[in-house]
């Protein structure tokens, strides 16, 4: 009985993402076909924009991460940015983070790859911080709309804050803290159509 309830729950959980996507499409289609419906139009345009942004660069990002995983030896990563690395590691992480572009969820696969190769948690968080807050392509936008003074001060203030937060977060976590396996499939939710695309 409990097992059945759990299975039903897992099924709902697996279907939910696609139900949400379908809902957006239905709202959008209602605007196109039936009657003017600004909310549906906006939601559809939003999803379309996000999907394009994602399709444009996320697969490439993941392929790079996969190559990094098979080519870069763990000991090199550990020596430069591992637990015992010095302050120079911060420079590497900030450089790596600021030179990239794209939304935050594009940084997660890179961060996880770094983590699994033996990068110290503080350095992973510093990378994420730099990626979020100090991307160079984004700064040009900021200067254009908020002025160079605002951007400069924000950068100067934010940098030490997230470096400190990286160290703090590493302290808050147990030394042997583990992260989920990114290649493991979702518990209970592995639709059959997923395998052909990976097995080529």
């Amino acid at each position, binding site marked *: 009985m409990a097992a059945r309830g759990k299975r039903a729950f897992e099924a709902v959980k697996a279907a939910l993402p696609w139900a949400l996507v379908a809902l957006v499409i239905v709202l959008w289609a209602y605007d196109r076909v039936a009657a003017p419906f600004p909310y549906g139009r906006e939601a559809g345009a939003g999803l379309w924009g996000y999907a394009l942004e994602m399709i444009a660069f996320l697969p490439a990002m993941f392929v790079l991460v996969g190559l990094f995983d098979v080519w870069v030896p763990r000991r090199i990563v550990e020596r430069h940015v591992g637990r015992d690395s010095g302050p120079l590691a911060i420079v590497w992480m900030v450089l790596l983070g600021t030179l990239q572009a794209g939304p935050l969820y594009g940084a997660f696969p890179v961060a996880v790859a770094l983590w699994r190769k033996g990068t110290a948690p503080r350095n992973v968080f510093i990378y994420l911080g730099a990626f979020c807050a100090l991307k160079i392509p*984004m700064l040009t936008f900021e200067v254009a709309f908020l002025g160079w003074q605002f951007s400069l001060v924000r950068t100067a203030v934010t940098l030490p804050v997230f470096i400190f937060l990286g160290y703090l977060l590493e302290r808050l976590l147990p030394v042997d803290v583990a992260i989920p396996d*990114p290649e493991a499939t979702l518990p209970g939710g592995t639709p059959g159509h997923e395998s052909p695309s990976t097995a080529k």
Partner: protein
Amino acid sequence: MEVLLAITALAVLASLIADRRRTLAGVRRGLRMFVNLLPTLAAVLAAVSLLMAAVSPPTLEGWLGSGGTIPFVAALLVGSIALIPGFIAFPLAGVLKDNGATTAVLAAFITTLLMVGILTLPIEIRFFGRRIALWRNLLAVSGAVVVALVMAAILS
């Protein structure tokens, strides 16, 4: 974007020349991670578009276009929850500034927008687990408060 695609293509090519088997293993590993993330990603992006369609820029201007405690807290909340690409967020922040938003409010909005992702938490949890994801976002919010207050002190 084109730069990333070019770099990826070059990397795959170089890797193929060096070792074909290893390249295939790496590419397959990367694509498997991507496919595993897709359902979570789809749910988050759909939820974000449903939410963002309800909150229009004029609404945000009403909430954040001034100074004081309430706009400051609103800026922290909106920035933490929303997922707005930079090319929309900065023009919006520019409009907020013209409407009379203070440095503290602008900094709180921009910093939480960039560093905190409540709507993208499901994605972050898939990658890092619940504990790390929650802690990182919690600390990022407090960091944003610090950044905003320090910036307000410097720029005014």
